[in-house]
């Protein structure tokens, strides 16, 4: 009887925890621009990311000034000329992870493909996007990985003629986040 009760409690707790919110404040987001002139990479290890496992609601946000470049001049151009970080300090995605209905949220196998559909806002411009992503259960939470492409021009990011050949027309973005349970 005791064993049955303990088992029931464990089962209930895993179901309850799998239905709450999961978050991180130190997700990774990276973008990579490759041209024949040079490759440019910037990393931000302070991505805030939240998933509501019950509804599938999913958000992430990053400060533009937290992207770190190898060279200070690149970082300066990025913040001052391209994304105008003082005016538009954040990049955000707000949407929902689709296709979770048939998934056992307490035990998502590695490499499970999902789509996060929502709105990406960069440089004050909002675009509807569908992000291909993988999700898996890990360490009592979820590991999320997504790679997608953005076209700077779509977000009214103007590249001056002097460096036009240095910046790719399509930039690769990678998002990685290990979400843990939000227990409040």
């Amino acid at each position, binding site marked *: 009887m005791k064993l049955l009760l303990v088992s029931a409690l464990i089962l209930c707790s895993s179901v309850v925890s799998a239905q709450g*919110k999961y*978050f991180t*404040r*130190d997700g990774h987001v990276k973008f990579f621009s490759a041209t024949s002139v040079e490759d440019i990479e910037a990393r931000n*290890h*302070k991505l*805030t990311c*939240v998933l*509501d496992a019950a509804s599938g*609601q999913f*958000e992430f*946000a*990053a*400060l533009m*000034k*937290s992207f*770190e470049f190898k*060279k*200070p*001049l690149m*970082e300066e151009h990025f913040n001052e000329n391209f994304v105008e970080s003082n005016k538009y*300090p*954040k990049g*955000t995605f*707000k949407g929902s992870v689709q296709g979770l209905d048939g998934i056992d949220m307490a035990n998502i196998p590695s490499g499970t493909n999902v789509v996060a559909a929502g709105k990406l806002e960069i440089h004050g411009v909002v675009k509807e996007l569908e992000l291909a992503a993988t999700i898996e259960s890990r360490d009592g939470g979820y590991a999320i990985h997504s790679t997608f492409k953005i076209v700077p021009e779509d977000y009214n990011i103007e590249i001056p003629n002097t460096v036009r050949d240095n910046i790719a027309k399509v930039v690769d973005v990678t998002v990685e986040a290990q979400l843990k349970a*939000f227990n*409040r």
Partner: protein
Amino acid sequence: MKRTLTFGALTAIIIGVLVAYQVSFKDHDDTADIEAAHKLNCEEVVQEFLDDETAATAKYVDQILEINGPILAIERTDQQITSMKISMDELYVVNATLQNPFEGELEESSEIVVKGVCSGFLGDAESMLPGGVVELKRGSIIK
């Protein structure tokens, strides 16, 4: 006269190219060598942003801040410490990435002082989380 002018022009071009090269390929300044503009407790700085984000942004962003407080969490890459969160509350934190990975030992909950460039505040008023994060980049451990 013509030779002098040619020599002067060539010298100017060479200096210009060297300066441009120096600026283009210059590394980031070492934060550890720069005096902090403000020295604060982690709770104070987060609270200032929560109280008035616009004023705190004008005061702190792009400035070097020296922040003290307890280590909430440590992130390691290849067994070296690359970033840490400073706070007693995981929803209200200062998140600092280090300019150079730290090879020593640090323990969670121990007090630390970190200096870094403030890149802003990621508040969560519009998202699904309460609280917010003050972000530091190119951080350096003071003690």
